């Protein structure tokens, strides 16, 4: 850490200056968050228009996600699941229908910094070391420096990257980078964790291991999770409920409850119930 202070001499100096002013403004916010996450989508449609064509990406999607629930959005490519996630994240706005997050608009929720997002790629900032990347949302929240350090340390422990905290992203494998991204998303203790196929670029082994790790992290954090995937086993293993989407136009075709007990273990993947769920979900696709 000594390197920081010398190498980034100027940068750090200025950062500290801006940080102190930030802390004064909203240092209290993170302490007084009221935990009432709940996502409601009512008849949400999304129409993409160009001059020549119109594509209905989502049609009349109505969902209701409970607080602390782990939900997967499952479907083939082009069914609009990413669009749906982005609507929830307030990255885009639906052409029709309404979305409520904890009774307020998605925008309000975003401005209140209730979201943690994990993208398909890790999207780490190259110029920040691992710990600084995890630190990023805390800096934005204006958390005090000492507290930040504590929290980053515990997050690193959580994702098992204590030894890599002073490394730059390029020095890490793809799986490690994605774990950093998750740690970063968790850093602000978001009420809602939105994950857009975060493990799709990984091999099957790392993916299954990370699935398990994600669950153990979630059990400690307790956020509401919306998880986009096109892998049926992954969605079953992780979720309380699986929202199955079908394409052209993208709509919600069924909701499958996953009654498997928690904590979930790798062994469950071989259980008859697991296989039954897989074939149930598969059927619901064929029904389309």
């Amino acid at each position, binding site marked *: 850490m000594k390197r920081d202070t010398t190498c980034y001499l100027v940068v750090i100096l200025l950062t500290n200056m801006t940080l102190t002013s930030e802390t004064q403004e909203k240092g209290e916010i993170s302490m007084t968050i009221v935990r009432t996450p709940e996502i409601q989508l009512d008849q949400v449609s999304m129409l993409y228009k160009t001059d020549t064509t119109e594509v209905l990406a989502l049609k009349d999607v109505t969902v209701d996600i409970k607080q602390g629930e782990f939900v997967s959005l499952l479907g083939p490519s082009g069914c609009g699941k990413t669009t749906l996630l982005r609507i929830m994240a307030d*990255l885009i706005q639906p052409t029709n229908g309404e979305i409520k997050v904890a009774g307020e608009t998605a925008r309000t929720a975003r401005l209140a*910094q209730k979201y943690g997002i994990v*993208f398909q790629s890790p999207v780490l900032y*190259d*110029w920040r070391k691992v710990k600084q990347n995890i630190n990023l949302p805390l800096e*934005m929240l204006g958390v005090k420096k000492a507290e930040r350090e504590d929290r980053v340390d515990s997050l690193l422990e959580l994702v098992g990257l204590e030894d890599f905290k002073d490394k730059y992203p390029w020095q890490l494998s793809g799986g490690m980078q994605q774990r950093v991204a998750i740690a970063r998303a968790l850093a602000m203790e978001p009420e809602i964790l939105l994950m857009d196929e975060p493990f799709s670029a990984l091999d099957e082994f790392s993916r299954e291991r990370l699935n398990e790790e994600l669950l153990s992290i979630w059990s400690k954090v307790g956020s509401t999770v919306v998880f986009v995937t096109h892998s049926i086993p992954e969605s079953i293993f992780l979720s309380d409920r699986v929202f199955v989407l079908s394409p052209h136009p993208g709509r919600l075709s069924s909701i499958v409850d996953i009654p498997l007990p928690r904590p979930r273990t790798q062994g469950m993947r071989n259980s008859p119930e697991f296989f039954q769920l897989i074939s149930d979900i598969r059927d619901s696709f064929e029904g389309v």
Partner: protein
Amino acid sequence: MGMQSVLNRRWLPTFVWIIGLVLFWELASWFLLHVSEAPMAQSKIPYIHELIITFTEYGTTLFIEGRATFSNAAIGFLLGAVLGVTLAVLMSVSKWIEQLTFPYAVASQMIPILGLAPIVYGIMRDEQVARILIAGYITFFPVALNMLRGLRSVDTSALELMYSYAAKPWMIYWKLRFPAALPGLFSGLKIAAPLAVTGAILVELMGAQNGIGVIMLRNLYYGPSHNYMFWSTVIVGAFLGVMSYLIISLLERFLAPWQADFRTNGGDR
């Protein structure tokens, strides 16, 4: 120990090249002077040992004048860099400003800027100002263009991440765009630094009170009997150019150490 041997091995070829070139030069100088007996042989390829003698004799003068050139170039360079960065930020913030200035920025890149030197000199009343202005002008555009490219290079997901944090615009610049633009900024600065020195020397060659270009000019003027001193000033000029580049490179290592170029630690395998 370990590091040192790596370093040695890494720089050995360059070192050998330099030695080789020096020997070749001495030989060529000797050949021209004694074998082919070319006119003005020592002006064309002077003996390096004579240059070293000149250096020891007039080291102070060379140092003082070199310093004057370098500080003028540096002031102009800093000024140009600050303006360039400012314009790049403005262009990245406002489409309007960009559309207005970008075509001119690109066009001016293609204009032989140094050709402007005599005119700037004619308009300005002060050589110091002219030197600084030209060094700054040369610096301005490469820095602005490269910085803008850097600010733009930010990838959409990285921006969405900021958006999801409800980051304010200045936060996005501070935490994301500026650091992401640093490599671009430095490549612009590395292009501009030697050019700034060139600009300063050019103005000095046109006539000035001090600077390495001034003694370069005077030694040229007073004929071949001053050729060692002239060559010494050329070497000082080259040295200043290389120095300016190295300084920027070194700064880059500190301020933007994450870049791919710095990743390989060893030399040749």
